[in-house]
């Protein structure tokens, strides 16, 4: 058992050296907060340690870690949102709360919608749109075919549209105004 754990630790160490920058930037692009991004990455490593019995195949580890980092980062966004709402409930403090600008509100709405997508679509939209990876890079990282990445991007963006349904009305209004 001790040997298995030592082996798995070595696998994780190698993966950290290979992927630390990718994982951090994935989290940072969502959170825009360095400390929180580090926490999200550390969460992924801790989870990988706990799931060592199940994660035997090193080639999938990077993909798995990337997905966990995305999920954890979006969870932290949701938590931040709840905290901010609590301050609004506390008597209008939101006017003075960090990040309460309209711009950040809109971004947060999209991130909260993104969190609701199915796992695969969520990962693809995050990597393609937020991280700016190409279709092939995304496919390689997630272990999917390029076609599947394309399908998941389409499905994910359509679901985001549905979740942000008032945006369609806005788009029509903008066009009519022109």
């Amino acid at each position, binding site marked *: 058992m001790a040997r298995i754990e030592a082996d798995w630790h070595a696998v994780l160490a190698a993966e950290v050296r290979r992927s630390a920058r990718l994982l951090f930037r994935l989290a940072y692009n969502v959170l825009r907060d360095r400390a929180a991004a580090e*926490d999200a990455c*550390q969460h992924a490593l801790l989870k990988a340690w706990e799931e060592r019995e199940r994660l035997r195949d090193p080639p999938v580890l990077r993909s798995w870690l990337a997905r966990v980092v995305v999920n954890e980062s979006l969870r932290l966004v949701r938590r931040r949102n709840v905290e901010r709402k609590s301050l609004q409930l506390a008597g209008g403090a939101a006017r003075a709360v960090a990040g309460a600008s309209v711009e950040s509100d809109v971004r947060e709405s*999209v991130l909260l919608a993104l969190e609701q997508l199915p796992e695969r679509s969520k990962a693809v939209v995050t990597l*393609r749109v937020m991280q700016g990876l190409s279709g092939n890079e995304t496919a390689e990282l997630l272990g999917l075919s390029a076609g599947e990445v394309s399908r998941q991007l389409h499905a994910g963006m359509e679901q985001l549209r549905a979740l942000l349904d008032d945006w369609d009305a806005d788009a029509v209004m903008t066009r009519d105004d022109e």
Partner: protein
Amino acid sequence: MSCDEVRQVLLDGAGAGRSRGDVTAHLRQCGSCRAAGEVYARIRNVLQPTAHDGAVRDGAAEPVAGWDAFEQRLLASPRPNGARGGGRWIGVRGSLGLGLAASLLLGVVGFQVGRWYAGSPAPLASGGKNTDVHEPTQNPPPHARLAAADVTRQVRAFEEVSQVFDGRASWVMLSDDATDMGLAPQPLDRPQPALLMLRMTMLRENQIISQADLVIVTGESADLSVPIARGRTLRYQIDTTRDTPTRLNLWAEVLTPAGGEALGALATTLRAEPGRNVSAGSLTTTGGVYELQIDFAQGAATEVVPGEIVPGEVGPGGASRPAPPAAEMMGS
């Protein structure tokens, strides 16, 4: 071209063999695809790094203490001997050069020193369990730990609530499903009240069923409820002392949807040692056995000047750009 094909092209340029003219022609006569394209563009604009996010756009964002320390932190998290140093950078703020050694030291020592308070037992609840010695939790789920960023956010949230209510906030609770707070009748008489932070994680069969973060001024009491599955409520009543380390009397109970009947309860006394994660005991209902894990951190509120709260990255080393002091953490 079909609408699906056009939208695929709008999204990622797929659809080789189709001319730009085909897409344009379709868009000219299809309002639905035009609207979809506009929403796609808006989503992209919102999610992609902007001109204001130079660090993101240029890929220059770096961990607080640099890449080497970050990798060391990640490597220090899972260790073959079963101990862990997860999320515990609270105590090494400002000592970035310590790197791995500090992380390991905190992780290992944090689990080996100290005993839990074995003072006067609290009243024993009907159907409950009273444990007077609390050992560190062996394998707390990662979410059960309070990370540095959590602590900073909690303190800031408390400060902002306190500011709104003229310094009368005695506690603030935040969870994914509920928020609540307590107010003292008068402003608290200490200019910088000592704050205790608790992350209360309730598990059933090793699955987290509820998690709530509480920031409380030491010496104050809190009475809070958190919704859980099937319309039930988890109610906590907590009394704290002002001495150091703070001691808590804790009562936890699971209530029926009607809000009255207690299905099970737990009463215990704890000594709050920052940086420790302990099992506070378990309570049993007909639905199963619930285990309560508590993670502690400590801080001090600082004065927040109205109108000067600004967004900022706050990490183990504190605010990274000019911002009012949010948290002065006092060890872990």
